[in-house]
């Protein structure tokens, strides 16, 4: 049934012809999908990867750094290849810088900084690996962006030997920008959000809500699966205990026990895959919708500013009929903002579609693999059970 769901999922999107419904076709579908993903690989001139997490223990703090490798043919880069180490707060700095310098663009989200202490071990292998993947995704999304990837802060982040020097430099600027934003928001209420942006806002609210529900369901399923696993781990050995009592039956009973053991292992893998691959994507998109909302808010501010200025001009119209230059500038700013935002939204919609297609395909694929492993385990003990019957 998962296969039908795969086909249904593909047809409306890519128009990939539905292949024969066999388990083998599922993984090939997935492969084809990944090829589609890389279709613009030829035009790509910037490649960034995050790997090799390392733990640093100092007297003051303990933290993890990640190696960031950059390969590029762009003229902005002096060398063809760079390799630097960065920690989470450096990523955070980068994101803030991007938000500041490219206020009209949608900045991809970072994984959550705060984890509940005691519940999650920040230095555990799984946590670090999940975070590494999320950071890698974050940089890849920036890399793929036609504007953000040329940002000077991004360049510094990828190449600078000593990032801290750059960080200090920016401090003064940061406070100034913060003030100007506050100044703009003061008092002015937006008359009306244009219909298309209102629709985006509404869409994002529902989208975040639904994803939140899916995230909760997915976590619940994983929890149920883990509990199921605990019971299975007890179930199998009972057959072994039984086999110790029996003569002729001993072997088949051992077989059943081993088979249940294999199924448990397969289930454990499935649960791990879901935790590592499924949940992070949901989280990323929930955070994405927050980023999107904050850009929408900024857009509203710019529109408010423009409207305020327009009103002020209208009051003084009789004295000076000419529209002042700064109002025109403001209008330009708003229109640029709208255009940027629309382009980013479209880009985001595309990657969202592709990501969720891959996510759901992956989920179906993992489930199929799980059931195939269980099937194999059970099929392998059939001869063991049949032999006994024939022997009689």
């Amino acid at each position: 049934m998962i296969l039908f769901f795969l086909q249904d999922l593909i047809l409306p999107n890519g128009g990939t012809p539905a292949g024969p419904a066999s388990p083998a076709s599922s993984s090939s579908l997935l492969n084809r999908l990944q090829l589609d993903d890389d279709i613009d690989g030829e035009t790509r001139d910037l490649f960034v990867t995050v790997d090799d997490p390392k733990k640093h223990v100092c007297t003051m703090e303990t933290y993890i750094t990640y190696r960031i490798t950059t390969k590029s043919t762009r003229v902005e880069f002096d060398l063809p290849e760079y390799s630097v180490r960065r920690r989470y707060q450096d990523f955070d700095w980068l994101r803030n810088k991007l938000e500041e310098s490219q206020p009209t663009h949608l900045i991809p989200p970072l994984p959550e900084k705060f984890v509940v202490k005691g519940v999650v071990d920040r230095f555990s292998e799984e946590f670090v690996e999940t975070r590494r993947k999320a950071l890698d995704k974050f940089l890849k999304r920036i890399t793929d962006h036609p504007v953000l990837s040329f940002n000077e802060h991004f360049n510094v982040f990828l190449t600078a030997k000593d990032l801290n020097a750059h960080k200090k430099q920016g401090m003064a600027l940061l406070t100034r920008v913060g003030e100007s934003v506050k100044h703009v928001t003061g008092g002015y209420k937006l008359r009306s959000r244009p219909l298309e942006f209102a629709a985006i806002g509404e869409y994002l609210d529902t989208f975040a809500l639904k994803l939140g529900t899916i995230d909760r369901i997915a976590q619940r399923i994983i929890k149920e699966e883990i509990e199921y696993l605990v019971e299975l781990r007890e179930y199998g050995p009972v057959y072994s205990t039984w086999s110790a009592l029996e003569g002729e039956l001993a072997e088949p009973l051992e077989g059943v026990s081993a088979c249940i053991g294999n199924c448990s292992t397969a289930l454990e893998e499935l649960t791990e895959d879901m935790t590592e691959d499924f949940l992070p994507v949901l989280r990323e998109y929930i955070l994405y919708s927050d980023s999107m909302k904050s850009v929408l808010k900024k857009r509203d501010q710019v529109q408010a500013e423009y409207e305020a200025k327009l009103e002020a001009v209208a009051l003084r119209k009789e004295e000076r009929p000419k529209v002042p230059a700064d109002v025109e500038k403001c209008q330009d700013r708003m229109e640029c903002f709208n255009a940027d935002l629309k382009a980013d939204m479209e880009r985001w919609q595309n990657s969202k579609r592709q990501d969720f297609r891959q996510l759901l395909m992956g989920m179906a694929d993992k489930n199929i693999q799980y059931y195939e492993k269980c099937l194999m385990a059970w099929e392998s003990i059939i001869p063991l059970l049949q032999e006994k019957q024939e022997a009689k």
Partner: protein
Amino acid sequence: MEQAPPDPERRLQPAPLEPLGHPDAGVESVVGEEAEGARDEGPGDGTMTENNFWLKKIEISVSEAEKRTGRNAMNMQETYTAYLIETRSVEHIDGQSVLTDSLWRRYSEFELLRNYLLVYYPHIVVPPLPEKRAEFVWHKLSADNMDPDFVERRRIGLENFLLRVASHPILCRDKIFYLFLTQEGNWKETVNETGFQLKADSRLKALNATFRVKNPDKRFTELKHYSDELQSVISHLLRVRARVADRLYGVYKVHGNYGRVFSEWSAIEKEMGDGLQSAGHHMDVYASSIDDILEDEEHYADQLKEYLFYAEALRAVCRKHELMQYDLEMAAQDLASKKQQCEELATGC
């Protein structure tokens, strides 16, 4: 899974009893049809070929169950389920002259039959009946005796019981068993006339024997030990299985929650809408598929339960043996002391 009972009765070498049964039973060596081949759940198919005397002569099936209301001995209204037993005797090889008979029995009558068999054949491992109340249930499984699924599983269990009795070389010749299959009215009275209840041993006496027997037969102590362990391992298995079923049910059913949220999500998407909608639909299908899976698994649990009760039947035989051993020892002791007295008297005179 091995399907045959442990067959300890063969090891016990029972003294051949005078057949109480129907004179015709097992006389002709007619090779008739075996118990209907379609009855694949019957845990005895194929393994009973050696001694299925009656199965060659008569086909037995419990084909239907019906809910009924009547008055019990206390004249109180009660609801119960009656089961239709159909018998078909195959008189000729060509199977042309076929005698079909059918009658209704309720569970308590099966119980009476089995109690009677237990008393009259203490040396035989009498096949067990399906459980009286649903045991080892997981939370979605109804513990109600009137539940259609329970009734259906009981129907299969009762049929297996009859087939097992009918395939037993001694039990199948029992007259009361024959009447159970063929005579609807007055059967209870006939059973009670045998006075089997009077012959039943008290539990206390049996317990006494367990502790006092001096030279227990090693074969029987081993058998008893085995049946104890079998009982404990199978009940452990059934307990864990019920929990496994519970959890598995949970895993599937939570997937059902995806169904709604995917469909709601699909409403706000354009290109993705159809895909999400159908993903949701398949999640629903996935979630509901568990019902059938677990229903099938319940039949497997029933077979385990049958052997759980078989272990108890095995113990009953061991208990009976202990009792006899104890009687024997007491008699021997008595005899010895009487002999001594006799000698003392002889020398004293």
